[in-house]
């Protein structure tokens, strides 16, 4: 099936070459990092993890979020999602690979990485995290590929695959829970030392992940003949809306616990993030941007008029992605390290080289998504699933656009 990725329009190849150029540039930065060590990064003795690990955290959410399409389909028989499932799974594959790459570039001695598995250490959450991400990657590759092969042969999905699918659904929750545990059990890091962290991770994953997926799907619709079924899209946007509300609610719980209890350790990180401390205000602007964007995106998502406005939706989702990224892809990590164990503040910003290496990994992710989505949409076109109708609907919609159009015209004429 891979051969489907080898035939494409000029635009497709231009995009691929563009990604390869980005990867090449980032690879140079990574080679430099390999030669001189992690001193190319902005991390320090006090902030021992930085942009790499925070991107891992964010992307695990993207990987886990595919389940929001898979679960309704398999657990609730919600068939509108049927032809979207593969995209959730393929997105998860790319996200898992990006996560693993972010671990690799973050490690001081990558040549020894296998020590993690040669000396399995069940007391270390990092060991489990590497294990579950690899497992999830494998499950999605396996399930996604098998289903797509069956689709292409006009066969129904094999029955023996069911257990794997159910396992992968539960597994999705586990990967993000384990990633939260990576942070959650550390004494002395108050911003992370909270029982609700795993729940917060899942909530933010289930809004940000499907939002990213929807955005990518909207692009896919433009460049291919695939069209998201209306109902599937609507359900997904509702899930995003609920998850974002829950996400912000959980965040409010943290704020309440910290400030009502008046415990210094729990208040300090929040004070540093939102008001600055000891003369350091690096993140204050970003944090209030996060709150502002979150408020706007929630308002737009819970109001049916705005939620169903397909012109506005992409922007709403972009705002949501930025908001959750500031919260989870940056501040969660920095707020955990600051204040430091000495009660001081050590600011952290990624360096240019760190950003280039991260760009390389994101470009690799985009490349994988492009190739996998290309294959998936080609197969869908071959077998005629979810294709675009002239009116803009999907073949799965049971479209009655012609009637609807007449009606609108009548209404307009009356008005």
């Amino acid at each position, binding site marked *: 099936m891979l051969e489907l990725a080898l035939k494409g329009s000029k635009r497709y190849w231009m995009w691929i070459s563009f990604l390869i150029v980005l990867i090449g540039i980032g690879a140079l930065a990574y080679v430099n990092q390999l030669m*001189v*060590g*992690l*001193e190319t*990064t902005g*991390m*320090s*003795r*006090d902030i*021992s*993890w930085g942009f790499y690990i925070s991107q891992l955290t964010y992307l695990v959410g993207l990987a886990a979020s595919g389940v929001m399409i898979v679960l309704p389909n398999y657990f609730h028989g919600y068939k509108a999602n049927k032809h979207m499932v593969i995209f959730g799974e393929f997105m998860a594959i790319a996200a898992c690979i990006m996560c693993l790459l972010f*671990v690799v570039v*973050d*490690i*001081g*001695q*990558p040549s*020894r*990485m296998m*020590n*993690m598995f040669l*000396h399995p*250490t069940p*007391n*270390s*959450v*990092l*060991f489990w995290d*590497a294990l579950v991400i690899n497992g999830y990657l494998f499950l999605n590759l396996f399930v996604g590929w098998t289903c797509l092969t069956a689709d292409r042969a006009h066969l129904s999905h094999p029955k023996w695959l069911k257990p794997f699918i159910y396992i992968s659904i539960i597994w999705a929750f586990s990967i993000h829970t384990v990633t939260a545990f*990576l*942070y959650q059990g*550390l*004494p*002395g*890091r108050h911003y992370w030392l909270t029982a609700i962290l795993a729940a917060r991770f899942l909530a933010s994953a289930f809004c940000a992940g499907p939002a990213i997926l929807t955005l990518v799907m909207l692009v896919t619709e433009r460049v291919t003949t695939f069209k998201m079924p209306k109902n599937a899209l609507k359900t997904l946007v509702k899930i995003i809306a609920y998850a974002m509300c829950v996400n912000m609610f959980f965040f409010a719980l943290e704020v309440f616990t910290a400030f009502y209890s008046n415990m*210094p*350790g729990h208040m300090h990180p929040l004070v540093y993030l939102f008001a600055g401390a000891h003369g350091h205000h690096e993140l204050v602007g970003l944090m209030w941007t996060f709150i502002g964007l979150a408020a706007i995106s929630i308002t737009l998502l819970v109001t049916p008029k705005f939620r169903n406005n397909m012109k506005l939706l992409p922007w709403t989702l972009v705002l949501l992605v930025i908001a959750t990224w500031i919260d989870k892809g940056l501040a969660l990590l920095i707020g*955990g*390290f600051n*204040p*430091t*164990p*000495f*009660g*001081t503040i*050590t600011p952290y910003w990624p360096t240019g080289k760190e950003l280039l290496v991260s760009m390389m990994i994101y470009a690799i992710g985009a490349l994988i998504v492009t190739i996998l989505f290309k294959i998936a949409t080609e197969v869908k076109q071959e077998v005629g699933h979810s294709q675009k109708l002239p009116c803009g609907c999907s073949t799965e919609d049971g479209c009655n656009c012609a009637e609807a159009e007449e009606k609108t015209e009548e209404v307009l004429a009356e008005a």
Partner: protein
Amino acid sequence: MKNDRRTFIKLAGIAAAGIAVAPKAMASSGQSPVKVNANAVHAKHWAMVIDTTKLHTEEKIAKLAEVCHAIHNVPNVEGNKEVKWLWSDAYAHTFPEQENPHLSEEVHQRTFPLLCNHCENPPCVRVCPTKATYQRPDGIVAMDYHRCIGCRYCMAGCPYGSRSFNWGEPRKNLDLEKLNPEFPTRMRGVVEKCNFCVERLAIGKQPACVEASEGAIVFGDLRDPDSEVRQVLRERFTIRRKPTAGTEPSVYYII
């Protein structure tokens, strides 16, 4: 020719010694025929008591740090990527949650020595994915620098900021003329920290900072009721850093 003969004699000597030692060693331990230094000191649990009424100025602590860093080939890096095994800081930074606004002025002005606490319940060991950080039966939290993958999870896990990472090549920041040939240097990309001078305990010596402290630091077996450490702990008021972290530090501070 000469060289060859010397090598041969050496090898023969080693072989002979091996033959002589092996049966005994094997009989006694059933393990490798490595001879333990007869002078090595042992304890059920090593601990340290620092008298901050005596050791309380930056200069005095800097002197100890210098000794420690020199014998352990600790690179001298400027800025926030620094590497340090022993250093000093103010009361508020040493005991961040045990401060009060009316603290005795004299205590508040002291400077406190900081190092790895060799916790009884060390989170750095708990989180290490490769067992590169491990706890020895005598309580010392040791590191295998050749095992470490540099994931820095232990740094996130340590509530005391006791660990340093070699962000760059450590030898770049070492005076190669003054290296201590008896202790290895590290490579870049690994974590390091105070090791309670295990290499000195193994040959019957006290930790270097203890020796250089002129009596301000006591070192000994916490499980032995008659040890000097226990005697001091019985007589003087001591506190430990961040008791709420539940790590049970083995470094005690006399206030």
